[in-house]
């Protein structure tokens, strides 16, 4: 653990595999940038690996003031022990006040190992981060400018704000897809700091025998429009309605957990607490009641259209457009309306 260090930087762990930067550290950059600006400190990224120097420029374009680069042949593949040890050493050398990791499998494997070694705090799966003050209930001491680590708990039924005022760095893993991807600024300048690591084979206790990457069939996070179906759609056959509406809107088809569990569609399409978190321009929820676990994955959508026959469905509480009715009637009408509208628009374009 390190002492409270108000001059400490804000850090993002730049998760990469095979020299390719993951999306999550990039998503984290915009939030981390604003935290660093509020605190008046530098934003840095830590890139560990073999052949990762080339990522430094990209991290700077996405908002980093500094990039700590650790190149080592033994860091070529991610391993818990070696990565944890190198991060631990970096943290104790530079004493950042905040260290953020993506809540990916790798982030959730690595961050607790570092936190345990450093005897520092760690909050899992945050969905938001803010800077704020905390008055300790016991001694009424005021702790200013702490990292508010905000996360759902109890299966998404409550939102907890967690703080750590004395055993720094303040560390958190952050859910994939909940932070907005920043736009790169190709003219941004930053500093690249090369760090040396001493590593031995003993620190790689695992032998990686084989690895299989399953290509994602659908990229929900990148979709501008999502049409999602729930248990209310009724059957796999009827789920064709979802695909049809998605097709005519140029949208990605998605589903609630219930629809996935019923076998209407593949798990890759699942939105929610145990699926993907999305924030599209438009989210059309068809026959989805909108349990809190589902809302956790889509409530940040800019516009939400909900179609449900049950007036009391919780999805209506967060919908901008509420359509109470039979989806088998409403969806075909929507498809028709979209087709007619776009035809009219095209004609208007031509006459102009």
């Amino acid at each position, binding site marked *: *653990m390190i002492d409270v260090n108000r001059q400490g930087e804000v850090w993002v762990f730049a998760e990469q595999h095979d020299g390719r930067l993951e999306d999550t550290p990039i998503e984290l950059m915009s939030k981390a940038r604003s935290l660093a600006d509020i605190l008046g400190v530098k934003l840095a990224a830590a890139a560990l690996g073999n052949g990762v120097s080339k990522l430094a420029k990209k991290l700077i374009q996405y908002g980093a003031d500094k990039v700590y680069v650790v190149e080592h042949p033994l860091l070529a593949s991610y391993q818990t022990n070696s990565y*944890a040890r190198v991060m631990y050493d970096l943290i104790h050398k530079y004493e950042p006040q905040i260290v953020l990791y993506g809540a*990916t499998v*790798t982030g959730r*494997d*690595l961050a*607790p*190992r570092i*936190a*345990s070694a450093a*005897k*520092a*705090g*760690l909050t*899992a799966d945050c969905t938001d981060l803010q800077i*704020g003050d*905390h008055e300790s209930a016991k001694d009424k001491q005021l702790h200013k400018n*702490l990292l508010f680590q905000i996360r759902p*708990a*109890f*299966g998404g*039924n*409550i*939102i*907890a*704000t*967690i*703080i*750590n005022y*004395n055993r720094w760095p303040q560390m958190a893993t952050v859910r994939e897809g909940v932070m907005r991807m920043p736009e790169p600024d190709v003219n941004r300048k930053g500093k690249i700091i090369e760090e040396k690591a001493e590593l031995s084979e003993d620190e790689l206790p*695992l*032998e*990686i025998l*084989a690895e*299989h990457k399953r290509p*994602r069939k659908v990229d929900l996070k990148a979709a*501008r429009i999502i049409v999602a179906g729930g248990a209310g759609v009724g059957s796999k056959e009827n789920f064709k309605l979802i695909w049809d509406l998605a097709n005519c*809107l*140029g949208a990605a088809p998605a589903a609630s957990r219930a629809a996935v569990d019923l076998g209407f569609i593949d798990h890759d399409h699942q939105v929610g607490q145990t699926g993907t978190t999305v924030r599209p*321009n438009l989210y059309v929820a068809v026959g989805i009641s909108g349990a*809190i676990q589902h809302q956790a994955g889509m409530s940040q959508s*800019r516009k*939400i*259209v909900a179609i449900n026959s049950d007036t009391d469905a919780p999805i209506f509480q*967060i*919908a*901008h*457009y*509420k*359509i*109470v*009715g039979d989806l088998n*009637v*409403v969806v075909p*009408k*929507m498809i028709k*309306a*979209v087709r007619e*509208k*776009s035809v009219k628009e095209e004609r208007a374009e031509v006459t102009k």
Partner: protein
Amino acid sequence: MPYNCIVLIKQVPDTKRITGQAMNDDGTVNRGALPAIFNPEDLNALEVALQIKEQFGGTITAITMGPPAAAAVLRDSLYRGADDAVLITDVRCAASDTLATSYILKCAVQKTGDFDIVLCGRQAIDGDTAQVGPQLAEKLGVPQITYLEELAELDGDSITARRNIGTGWQQVRTKLPVLLTVTGEANEPRVAAAKKMMKYKNAWAPVEIEQQVRAENPEVDEATIKELVERKCSILKEKGLLIKQWDLDFVEADLTWCGRGGSPTKVHRIQSVVLAAKESKNVEPSENGITEMIGELIEDKTIA
């Protein structure tokens, strides 16, 4: 060769069954109103241990940290085939975060003696943090295989397993001792065996015996209660039905690292989830209503 397995389990509120009544007005969880269950992925961890024992022999010790009522999940482990059960219960454990919890569990695991494999569920459904496993592995100084989907091979002191890496899977090998965190995909946990249930339904931890004695003898003095508890416990022990109960002194934990004081993370605020759209409108499920809505969405460039 036989393997000594330690399975760490947790009793959790069934978060999938939270209803309105289960939340207090201030948004905190009314734990009393929630059914307490065996954390689902801990059952998968126990199942992996049971399969190891069936194939290679050895012992299985189930350990839980929690209030006296958590002894229920230990009994459940005995019904399914665990050999030994340990309840870590101590008021000084209260408000432990994942770091303090992993420290206390480390002390308990070391107290049980030599081990080959420590197994945990990937995560518990109340906190969903998945942190205690890796933190415990670090404190024990052993490698970790997290997100285990399949135990492929055990051969001497070498273990091969397949783990989920989010975008696919990875097959890894390492040397024992090791800590595994097991996912729900790893197996289908067996149900309790009727014979074992008959045997262990009368297995109790001393703290439960004390509760029973007090309830049955409301009028007697403390000294008599103590004597009655001791007598009952020694009978249970003879029958092999006494669940071990350890406190922080027994596991030789340094109190600096336990409970609220040992926890770097603190709760600043708890809010119940209330999501609401800033502006919303009802749309008639008619052709006109829908066409008008689509028009608006095209107008404001939501639909390109």
